[in-house]
């Protein structure tokens, strides 16, 4: 079975995001870019399935500008067998991303697609669900446990009410939550090996994807700040302060 993994590059999770003073975006020049942390978890899960003999090939895919190569090399160094780079200078919205991934799915015919549950830049949490809908296949979002047996998978999902377990027929889309696994670190020899692994590049325009970017972002703003409050010296003073505010 082949597994396709979505592997998006985002602003590193440690970067403090600054909104540009003119409200046209956030500052991305010169900031550290990394793989979306949830996509690293998705890739790790695919690699483990390959190591267990469930999967035979792990393919990572990313949509973005020409300089994504180094990012994809990281995914290959982590252990993916090959990469697909859909080249477009412009960022795409989730519906367009899902339609693009569907084109890759039709070409690659994976038995499983694993994506991060959300990207930590736009926090949309949509692409996996949209891909599953367009592909007319099952989805198991927010997965914290994945067992594949034959042409079925049992997935534990982290939902508000607790842990939900569902059974899905394959092929299917699974989106990774935080506790699915802990991604491995990349070792130096693997970086060397990754240089020989193939990266297919496909021009976005040649895929004939219907544009789904219906939303226009007209302004970016910094969030309203909470002001720093007061320090109290002990429990009694805290209780008195909360009582005074009518909270106790």
């Amino acid at each position, binding site marked *: 079975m082949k597994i396709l993994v979505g592997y998006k590059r985002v602003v590193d999770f440690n970067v403090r995001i600054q909104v540009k003073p003119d409200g046209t975006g956030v500052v991305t020049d010169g900031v550290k870019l990394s793989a979306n942390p949830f996509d690293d978890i998705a890739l790790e899960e695919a690699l483990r399935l390959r190591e267990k003999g469930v999967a035979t090939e792990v393919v990572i895919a990313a949509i973005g500008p020409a300089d994504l190569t180094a990012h994809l090399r990281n995914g290959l160094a982590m252990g993916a067998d090959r990469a697909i780079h859909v080249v477009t200078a412009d960022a795409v*919205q989730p519906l367009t991303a899902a339609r693009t991934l569907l084109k890759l799915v039709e070409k690659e015919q994976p038995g499983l697609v694993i994506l991060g549950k959300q990207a930590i830049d736009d*926090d949309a949490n949509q692409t996996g669900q949209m891909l599953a809908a367009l592909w007319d296949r*099952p989805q198991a979002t927010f997965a914290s446990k994945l067992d594949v047996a034959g042409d079925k998978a049992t997935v534990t999902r982290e939902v508000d009410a607790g842990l939900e*377990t*569902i059974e899905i027929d394959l092929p299917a889309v699974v989106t990774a939550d*935080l506790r699915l696994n802990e991604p491995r670190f990349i070792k130096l020899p693997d970086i060397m090996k990754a240089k020989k692994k193939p990266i297919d590049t496909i021009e976005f325009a040649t895929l004939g994807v219907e544009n789904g970017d219906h939303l226009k972002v007209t302004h970016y703003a910094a*969030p309203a700040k909470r002001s720093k409050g007061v320090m109290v010296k002990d429990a009694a003073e*805290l209780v008195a302060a909360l009582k005074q505010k009518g909270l106790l």
Partner: protein
Amino acid sequence: MSKILVIAEHLDGKLNPATARAVSAAKAAKPESIDVLVLAAQAAGISAEAGKIDGVSRVLTVERAENAHPLAAVLAPQIAKAAAGYSHVFVPSTTFGKDVAPRAAALLGAAQISDVMAVTDATHFKRPIYAGNAIIDVETDPAHIVVATIRNASWPAATNGAASAPVEALTLDAALPGHTRFVGLQSGKSDRPDLQSAAKVVSGGRGVGSKENFDIIFKLADKLGAAVGASRAAVDAGYVPSDMQVGQTGKIIAPELYMAIGISGAIQHLTGIKDAGTIVAINKDAEAPIFEVADFGLVGDLFKIIPELETALG
């Protein structure tokens, strides 16, 4: 004029209050009508509750055995069919809504606005990105239906009105897949208030130290009548189950009182509580970032402070 369809969330025959919050957001768009769609195996109790929410024009129900559990693959085709004639579909931004709404949106060929925190008008919305570190204004394309998930913490639940809206059964010609099957739900049910809607929340972090030690947090919460939450660090360390996690990837909440105990205040955690009324932080590290957002801070050993708090509470 716009017509908005709100998708009801429910569990065990009860309407989730997140539905009434989504109705509040719908009212802010000043639509011609707001209908609530209840997809359930048995809809009667849920639809009666939904009909009482102020601002609801009609409650539409689809009763099918397949709707017994909230499987996105089963519900989304029904939502997409039912959405015909509406300008907007609003769904609570809970794990239910986050799962089903994008699937319905894709079937409708529509983009989705996730986590709507403000509605300027029917075509202009605000939502957070980068874990709430930036807020964007989003303009929709009137050529397409708008699918949106509604950020719980940004909206009060619409109150019950004087009259009940009529309930109508809907028959939808939607083929439902059998490729996705519900197996079970392991629920951390407790007698404590629900974390997502509680007025008071007490949360513990890594500083609590162990699963056993977390009892001190539960005891304090019970004394206050509060729900219990936790930081990601505490969940990852196995102190408490994942459904108690507060933060960017856990629950985003807006209680009147939030007490963060032994929580340093990583940006991802602060994202989950920034709409809280009053934040109290108790931490032994005076430099912890949680103090930057706390209305009241107390530096010290939580195992000494909590018993003192209980004494002071009487």
